[in-house]
């Protein structure tokens, strides 16, 4: 009896690498079967919750793929594939500021994530060995920045003072280090079996070697989660563009181009011919707008399924220990 109960509730503290079981939890014998009404209500609410996320995305994707006629027939809310076309994508990818901004976004995301990960992983490991020289004051130095900051304008003055205005590094370096992420990584590295590390040390490995060959391979899940967090942060950022390169449309990342559309309706400044304002187009303006939205979504939706199984474990450590 007890054994059954323990098993039925043993789902949560799953180790990062554990396989998802897909099995159902059994209802404990002492618990009454819920009424049909209760079940129906619960199911209804859950369907509503899932639909509130999925339906808007569905509409956005279909709108981006629809012909003007189909959008009209559907009354603006395209719920069913009808008159599909990829014209909107062809148009924005061949013309105007969107195509270039995708490359800018990808470059910033890749370079920024690489910088952030290298710096964070090194720092987290450097501070993770207990009894190492000076790790406590350095840790304190890091944590203080989580509670007090100079704020928007002093940071702006520092970055522009260093000549960051209009430079790509201004979009990366000021926010490259997340102390929270370092603390999560450090928590994992501290708990990596010290036997393993001692063994490596006896075999003559230095700290660089240990980090590369012992610690990193044993913490793939958390590395994946933190990489995702950094990458999403860079991909989604637009405010630093607003601060440091608001007038240089050739350097805008995708989010900022999308913002222009959100703020200014259908015209995107800098879109000369065949941009969103063009009247001769055979493509509905809604399709063009939603195509930009979909392009913004794609990388996240592509990466998400691969990392989703990891971040439950990663976040929990962060939320509880951090």
């Amino acid at each position, binding site marked *: 009896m007890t054994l059954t109960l*323990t098993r039925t*509730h043993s*789902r949560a503290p799953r180790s990062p690498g554990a396989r998802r079981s897909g099995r159902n*939890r059994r209802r*404990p014998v*002492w*618990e*009454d079967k819920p009424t049909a009404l209760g079940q129906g209500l*619960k199911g209804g609410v859950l369907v509503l*919750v899932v639909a*509130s996320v999925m339906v*808007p995305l569905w*509409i*956005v994707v279909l709108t981006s793929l629809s012909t003007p006629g189909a959008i009209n027939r559907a*009354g*603006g*809310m395209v719920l069913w594939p009808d008159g599909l076309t990829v014209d909107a994508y062809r148009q924005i990818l061949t013309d105007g500021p969107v195509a270039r901004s995708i490359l800018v976004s990808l470059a910033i995301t890749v370079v920024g994530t690489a910088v952030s990960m290298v*710096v*964070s992983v*090194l*720092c987290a490991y450097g*501070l993770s*060995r207990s009894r190492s*020289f000076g*790790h406590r004051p*350095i840790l304190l*130095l*890091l944590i203080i920045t989580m509670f007090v*900051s*100079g*704020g*928007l*304008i*002093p*940071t*702006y003055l*520092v*970055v522009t*003072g*260093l000549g960051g205005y209009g430079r790509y590094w201004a979009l990366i370096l000021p*926010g490259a*280090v997340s*102390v929270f992420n370092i603390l999560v990584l450090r928590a994992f590295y501290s708990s990596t079996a010290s036997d393993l590390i001692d063994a490596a040390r006896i075999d003559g490995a230095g*700290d660089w070697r240990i*980090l590369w060959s012992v610690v990193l391979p044993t913490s793939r899940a958390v590395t994946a989660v933190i990489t995702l967090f950094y990458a999403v942060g860079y991909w*989604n950022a*637009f405010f630093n563009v607003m601060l440091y390169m608001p007038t240089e449309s050739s350097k805008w990342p995708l*989010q900022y181009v*999308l913002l222009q559309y*959100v*703020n200014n309706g259908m015209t995107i400044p800098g879109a000369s011919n065949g941009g969103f304002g063009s009247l001769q187009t055979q493509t509905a303006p809604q399709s063009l707008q939603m195509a930009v939205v979909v392009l*913004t979504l794609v990388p*996240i*939706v592509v990466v*998400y*399924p691969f990392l*989703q199984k990891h971040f*439950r474990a990663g976040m*929990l450590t962060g*939320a509880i220990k951090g």
Partner: protein
Amino acid sequence: MNWRIRLRRDRSLLLMALPAVALLLVFSYVPLFGLITAFEHYDPLDGVLNSQWAGFDQFRLLFQDPAFWASLRNTLWLSFVQLILFFPVPIALALLLNSVLSERLRNFIQSVVYLPHFFSWVLVIAIFQQMLGGAGALNHFLARHDLGPWDIMTNPDTFALLVTGQTVWKEAGWSIIVFLAALAAIDPNLYEASAVDGAGRWRRMWHITLPGMRGVIVLMLVLRLGNTLSVGFEQFLIQRDAVGPEAADVLDTFAYFYGITAGNYGYGTAAGLFKSVISLLLIWGANKLAHAFGEDGLYRK
């Protein structure tokens, strides 16, 4: 052990920490020093060190500025609405999800509700505009059925509800993680024992589940109260044009528009500093409150 020997032994570890420390020194600690611009008539040509001192003039101006008080009022009001309408949602959702027996279904729902957390605010607002905006799906639908236009996206009166709705859509799913963790940590034997004692479904929820979540709920409440003045920044920045600064300006956007956009750096810094100081006090106070309830809060007493 001699510190020289320890330094020599751990030099590679220190070297590893160096890049992150250097970045934080430049981009976190130097700006701290820049806070003194709040007490200056800061002139970019003179720099922080040579600008003319203003004493508390910037703060005096700030407290006489109706736009500042309006943004403070907006901040507090939006924070209050979010506390009432956002805070309970993840708790309820976590309880609901926890009662789903099928593991596969639970994982599926979790994957779906986590997703919007990874969207940018630009994206979220673009999607909301497509659904609820003047030319959006809802208004097309209303027009088809001869009902008047109802532009939710530009109405200052319902702005608080709109932004809270957006926050719920984007973050409620992600926020359930900590509550699910708390639920998973509750000893299942307690449920069995109370069921044997005759406690029904709702009694068990009241006497076992909710007390089991109490610590996390109080911690989240403390964090929420401590962040009263940080209701969100990008969300308001993006929608300020649509509903007007009267409804959408919060303290953070105030510092941006009246400081950076207007080139009035000392003034904006003063507004930012005001916010930081009050926020620190709020965190400290909320923590005291948590301790008074016998909970840990941010740190153990």
